[in-house]
């Protein structure tokens, strides 16, 4: 065995110029494989991180019309007493009310269609919306003037030509003049409030635009939505929790897992193709080697080497090529993954099973070399005497 191994190593070493391209092809394949596995894993981690950022922790709660008669503070106190609740407030989003009105700037005469949201200052805060100028309903400076007040989404205000530097800007909605007290920018991940007319529940009631059900937004800590959501209805209406609707945020975990699985499937298909190409490359090289070295094989057999040893030598050569090529390729692939991760700002992740690539290369080398090795063992040394 030792002789066979030494002979194979010598043959690979001494025939380096003939083996180098196969070695490079295997290395390239292994590097591609390692890079694909590593980049897939790294990008999966990045994808997961991004999905995690997108993951909402907002719970929607809807209560019947009678809830409007309750104090918002009373409702908030009940909910905020629960663990993991960060903020609560009334937020009837425009898409929920489906009410669209014509909004006209009293000053400029410009007008646009806009949807209507019914919100409180607490609701805006829970949503993460920012008052970019003016004040919220809670700080309404005109409360004593018995005026109808309104807040406008930032984009709507801009298109109407309204800003809070214009003194007391007014808009007309359904024939009623409303004082604009603030301009709102929706939260960083959403935009619906930025194009809406936002009314306080009181103003909405006066304009007969208050929704029949009251919606609340409950913002909770990450990964606690399900736990909080499960007790909300009972807390808000202990006698009849079924009257309280609780809408948990949709989880992107399944989508994320599906995307990652798709990506991994693609990687494994590519890896399979790369492996087959490498195997053919090794098989081809060994076939050529057998043809080129028929004389050498014949001499060895004439000198007393048996067919099994000849086959073992060629088998070991192909195995050595597969192992060494894939080892170097794996290391190169790891460097590529590190570089790509560094450039993309991803975490560097190299799956542990990447370390199996050289072993895999060894097995592929052995399988690819099996047929040429069997052919080598069948060389008839008598041909040497006939030809030379």
């Amino acid at each position, binding site marked *: 065995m030792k*002789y066979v191994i*030494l*002979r194979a190593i*010598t*043959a690979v070493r*001494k*025939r380096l110029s003939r083996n180098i391209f196969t070695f490079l092809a295997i290395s390239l394949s292994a590097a591609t494989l390692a890079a694909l596995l590593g980049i897939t894993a790294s990008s999966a981690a990045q994808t997961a991180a991004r999905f995690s950022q997108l993951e909402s922790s907002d719970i929607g709660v809807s209560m019947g019309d009678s809830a409007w008669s309750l104090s918002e503070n009373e409702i908030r106190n009940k909910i905020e007493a629960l663990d993991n609740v960060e903020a609560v407030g009334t937020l009837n989003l425009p898409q929920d009310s489906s009410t669209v009105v014509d909004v006209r700037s009293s000053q400029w005469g410009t007008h646009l269609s806009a949807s209507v949201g019914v919100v409180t200052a607490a609701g805006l805060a829970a949503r993460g919306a920012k008052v970019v100028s003016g004040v919220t309903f809670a700080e309404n400076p005109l409360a004593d003037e018995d005026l109808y007040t309104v807040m406008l989404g930032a984009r709507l205000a801009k298109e109407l030509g309204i800003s809070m530097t214009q003194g007391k800007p007014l808009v007309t909605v359904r024939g009623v003049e409303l004082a604009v007290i603030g301009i709102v920018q929706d939260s960083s991940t959403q935009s619906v409030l930025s194009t809406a007319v936002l009314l306080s529940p009181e103003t909405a009631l006066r304009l007969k635009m208050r929704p029949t059900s009251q919606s609340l937004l409950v913002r909770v800590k990450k990964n606690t939505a399900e736990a909080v959501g499960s007790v909300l209805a009972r807390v808000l209406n202990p006698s009849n929790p079924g009257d309280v609707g609780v809408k948990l945020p949709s989880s992107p975990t399944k989508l994320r897992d599906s995307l990652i699985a798709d990506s991994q499937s693609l990687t494994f298909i590519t890896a399979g193709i790369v492996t087959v190409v490498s195997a053919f490359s090794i098989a081809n090289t060994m076939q050529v080697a057998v043809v080129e070295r028929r*004389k*050498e094989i*014949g*001499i*060895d*057999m*004439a*000198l*007393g*080497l*048996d*067919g099994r040893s000849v086959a073992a030598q060629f088998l070991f050569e192909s195995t050595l090529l597969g192992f060494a090529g894939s080892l170097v390729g794996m290391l190169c692939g790891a460097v590529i993954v590190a570089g790509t991760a560094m450039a993309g700002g991803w975490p560097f992740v190299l799956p542990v099973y990447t370390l199996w690539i050289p072993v895999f290369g060894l097995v592929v080398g052995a399988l690819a070399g099996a047929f040429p090795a069997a052919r080598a063992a069948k060389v*008839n*040394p*008598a041909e*040497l*005497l*006939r*030809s*030379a």
Partner: protein
Amino acid sequence: MATNEAGAAPESPVVSARSAVAENEAGAVPIVAVEALTKTFPPTTHALTDVSFEILLGQSVAIIGKSGSGKSTLLSILGLLETPTSGTYRFAGTDTQGLPSRRLTAFRRDSIGYIFQAYNLVEYLTVRENVLHALDIKGIRGEQAERIAEEKIARVGLEERRDAYPQTLSGGEQQRTAIARAIAGAPQLLLCNEPTGNLDERTAASILDLLLSMVSPTNAVVIVTHDSSVAAACQRRLVMSDGVLTEQISGSDSGIDDGTDEESA
């Protein structure tokens, strides 16, 4: 020119193949004894027909004949690289018929050496490595192998070229390397296939001298050749024609019609 150290009795210049076998029955066990040997390559090529002869240790034997006369096939059978279709071949007293390939390989490894017309050295191994390679196959390694390799390389006069690769050697040097490789395992039977066929006259003569100097009481040298001068230098000559052993000639004699053609030069 080397002499026969076996001290075989003088023979008449021409004897029949059958009588040669009978003559040797009284002596030592021959290293090679073939009787009624035939070899047929399907479908109808009769390479050898009813060939019988013996070779004793200490003899140098030339096998001569025209191209296609069956010389190389006979050498392949003597070297246990091919098996006869019928007849018997006893190597060192052992009937080789029906022996498993493992045993035949062992005979080749331990008792037979080959020298080819085209040298057939391993091109990526040096002179020394080629000899070591043969020893390695025979299971001789380490210091012992190194010592034997040095000794055999010195025997063929290539001490200065021991680390040279075959492609940098002259034809004569390559054949000397092949001889060193062939004798590394101290074979009982040294088979040479046209060993001087690729060499100029002067180099051929020196190679022939070297080969015949290898003959000793412990071995025999068989040379397949077209060259009548090479054949004449051997103690015995087996003349082949159309697969039949037509004559066995003993003693040095260059004036015999050996059936070779002019292309053999």
